[in-house]
C-alpha cells in the first residue's frame, strides 16, 4: 500500500480557530492528541470524492481510532519545491524543471503559497514562501556541483506547516546522493515525524554500476573498456525516495528523461521536450489537493514511539478502492 501524510499535533482551541474553511472541522479540547492523515482514495483512475467520517476506519498500532473529522480541498496548500541543480542535470532537463515549476505556480489558488529551494551540494532557498502571484520568476542558474539529496530532504521535511494549512513538498532529482552528511536512515527518522507530504519526480534509474577497466597500451596510454553491472533497484536513488514517500504519504513518479529522438534521413535529431515534467509535477499537486484530511483522536495507544497506521473505507464496495496514506509516524 502506498501511503500518505499525518502528524501528531497537540491542538489547542486557539490554534484551531483559524481553519474555518472546513465545516466538518469539530471543536477540540485543549491538550488532546489529534493525528492528521492525508488519505487519497481512488478506484482505478477515478478519485473517490464523497466520503464522510463514518466511511473511514483507522487503526493506530492495530487499535481502532475514532475519526473526528474529514475534509477535502478545504485547507489552503503550501507547496515547497526542491529542485536538483547539480552537474548531472543537463540544460534541457533544467528547462523542463522550470516549466513544470511554473505550471505548479499557475495552478495554485489565491490562498495557496509557493516556495522554491534548489540544491546541489548547497541548499538554497530561492523563493520564500509566498502567495504564488507574488513569487518572483523562477531561475535556477547553471547546473553545477554535487548532490546533497539526503540533506535537502531532511531540511524540507523539518519545515512545519502552519496550523491552518497543508504542506506539500515536490522534490525533483535525476540522481542519488553524493555529498550529504545524513544517512538515509537519519532522513527517514525526520520523515516519520514530519507533517509534510513529500512527492518525488525522478529520472529513470536502473541501479547499474559502470564497470570500467583501464589497461595500459603498449606505448603507455590508457585503453578503456566499459561494461554495466546487472541492474539493482536498491542501488538507485529511487529506492530511497520510495521509503520517504511511504513515510510521508507521497508518491514517486519516474520519468524517462532521455530526449525524444527522430530518425531523419539517417540522422538522429535530439529534440528536447521542455514540457516533459509538467504532467508529473501537476499530478503530484492534484493528487495531494484532492486527498482527504482525516483527523482522529489518539486513544488506547501510548503516544511516544512508532505508530503503524492502517486506513480502510467501510462503505460497500470500499474494498475495491485504492487507499494511500503514510505507513505510520513517530509520536513524541
Amino acid at each position, binding site marked *: 500500500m502506498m501511503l500518505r501524510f499525518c502528524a501528531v499535533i497537540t491542538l489547542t482551541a486557539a490554534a484551531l480557530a483559524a481553519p474555518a474553511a472546513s465545516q466538518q472541522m469539530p471543536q477540540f479540547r485543549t491538550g488532546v492528541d489529534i493525528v492528521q492523515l492525508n488519505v487519497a482514495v481512488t478506484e482505478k483512475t477515478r478519485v473517490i470524492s464523497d466520503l464522510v467520517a463514518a466511511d473511514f476506519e483507522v487503526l493506530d498500532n492495530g487499535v481502532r481510532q475514532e475519526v473526528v473529522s474529514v475534509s477535502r480541498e478545504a485547507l489552503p496548500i503550501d507547496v515547497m519545491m526542491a529542485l536538483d541543480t547539480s552537474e548531472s542535470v543537463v540544460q534541457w532537463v533544467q528547462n523542463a524543471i522550470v516549466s513544470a515549476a511554473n505550471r505548479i505556480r499557475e495552478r495554485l489558488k489565491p490562498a495557496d503559497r509557493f516556495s522554491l529551494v534548489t540544491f546541489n551540494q548547497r541548499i538554497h532557498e530561492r523563493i520564500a514562501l509566498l502567495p504564488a502571484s507574488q513569487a518572483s520568476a523562477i531561475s535556477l542558474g547553471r547546473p553545477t556541483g*554535487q548532490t546533497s539529496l539526503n*540533506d535537502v530532504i531532511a531540511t524540507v521535511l*523539518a519545515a512545519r506547516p502552519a496550523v491552518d494549512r497543508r504542506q506539500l513538498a515536490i522534490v525533483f532529482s535525476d540522481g542519488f546522493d553524493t555529498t550529504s552528511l545524513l544517512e538515509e536512515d537519519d532522513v527517514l527518522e525526520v520523515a516519520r515525524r514530519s507533517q509534510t507530504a513529500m512527492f518525488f519526480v525522478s529520472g529513470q534509474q536502473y541501479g547499474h554500476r559502470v564497470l570500467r577497466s583501464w589497461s595500459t597500451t603498449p606505448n603507455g596510454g590508457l585503453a578503456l573498456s566499459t561494461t554495466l553491472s546487472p541492474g539493482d533497484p536498491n542501488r538507485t536513488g529511487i529506492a530511497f525516495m520510495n521509503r520517504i514517500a511511504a513515510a510521508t504519504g507521497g508518491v514517486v513518479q519516474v520519468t524517462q528523461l532521455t530526449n525524444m529522438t527522430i530518425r531523419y534521413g539517417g540522422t538522429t535529431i535530439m529534440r528536447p521536450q521542455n514540457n516533459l515534467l509538467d504532467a508529473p509535477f501537476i499530478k503530484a499537486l492534484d493528487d495531494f489537493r484532492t486527498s482527504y484530511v482525516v483527523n482522529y483522536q489518539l486513544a488506547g495507544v501510548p503516544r511516544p514511539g512508532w505508530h503503524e497506521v492502517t486506513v480502510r473505507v467501510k462503505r460497500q464496495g470500499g474494498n475495491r478502492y485504492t487507499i494511500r496514506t503514510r505507513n505510520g509516524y513517530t509520536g513524541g
Partner: protein
Amino acid sequence: MKVLAVALAVAAVGVTAGAQTRVQQSPAQSPDTMMGEELYAAYLVSGPAVLSKAFPTNQRYEDFRINFRDRVFEGWGHTAPVFSRAMFMFDVSLAAQPRGYVYWADFFQLGQTYLIKRLERSAPVPARIGTDPEMDAFELQWNKTAISFLAGRRQPDLLDTLARPLIEGRIIPASSAGRPGLVDPWIVLLEGFVEEGYVIEDPTLITDRGNAAIKAYEKAAGFESTRAEAIVRIARLLLDSKRPSEALAALDRFDEAWTSEGVLIYWARLLRGKTLAALDRPDQAIRAYESALDIVLSAQSPRIGIMAIEAKRGRAPMAEAISRDVRTAIDPVNDPWWIYAHGSMRFFLKWEKELRAMASK
C-alpha cells in the same frame, strides 16, 4: 603564467631547436592544427596558454592524441627524461579536461609512463632509484599533482590506474642525501584514498574495500605528516561500517595539535558529531557539531546534523528554525565536508605550483 612560459622556454633551449624552427616556418599555423612536436615547440615558447586553443573539438583532440602516441611518444622514451616533456603531457591533460576523462586521462598516463620508463632503461631497476634525486623528486611531485587532479573527478578506477605504480613502490623518492627514501607517507595515504574511493562510489563495497582502506590508513597513521588525515578517514569508514563505538575510539586518538589544517580538524569534529548521534548521545553530538561550526562558521553540514537530532528527539520548532537557517544562508563559504570524497584534491593548486617551480629549474 608568464613566468612559467619563460621558464619552460629557458628549459627548452637546445632541446627543441628543430621544432622551434618549424614553428617559425609556418607562423600562420594555428595551435588547433599543430601535431606532436609542433605543438610541443609552441608550448615551449608560449607556455600552457597555447594549449587552451589547441583542442576545440573532441575529434581534434583524438587526432592529436593518436598522432602523438604513434609518432612522438616512443621517440621521447629513448632519450633522457626532460621535465618539460612531462609537463607538456601534464598540461595537455589539463587543457583537454573539458573533453571528458576518457580523453584527457590518457595524457596523464602517458606522462607517468614517460617518467617511469627512465627506471626501466637499465636493469636492475632498484639500482637506478636515488641516482638522480632531482628527477625522483620531480617524478613524485608530478604524480602527486596529477593524482590530486584526478581525485576531483571521483573516478576511483581511474585514480587506481595512476596511483597503483606509486603504491606498488615503482616510484620511490630519494632522500635529500641522495639515498633511496624508504617511502613517502603520502603514498601510503594514497592507497587508502584509492580503496575508500571505491566505497564512496559504491557503499556495498564497504566490507572488502573498506577494510583495505582502513588497513592502509592504519599504516599512514604511523607517519607524523599523514596521521591526522588517516585517523579521520578510519573513523569515517568505521562509522559507515556501522561500528560507531570503534569510530569514536578512532576519533579519540585524533589530536588536533597534529595538524594546522583546519579542514582536517573540521572533519574530525563533524564526524565526532555524527558518530555520537549514531551512538544516541544527542547532547554530546550537538556540542561536537557546534565545535565544527567554530572552525567554519557558515558550514551547512553541522547545522543539518543538529537539525536531524532535534527533529529526532521531538523538538520540532528548533529543527524548523535550523531548517530555515540552512535554506536561507547566504554566506558563500564552502563546507569542507563537500570535498571529503575527493582525497587530495584540495592540494592540487599548491602541488601544481611546486611542480612548476621544480620544472622551471
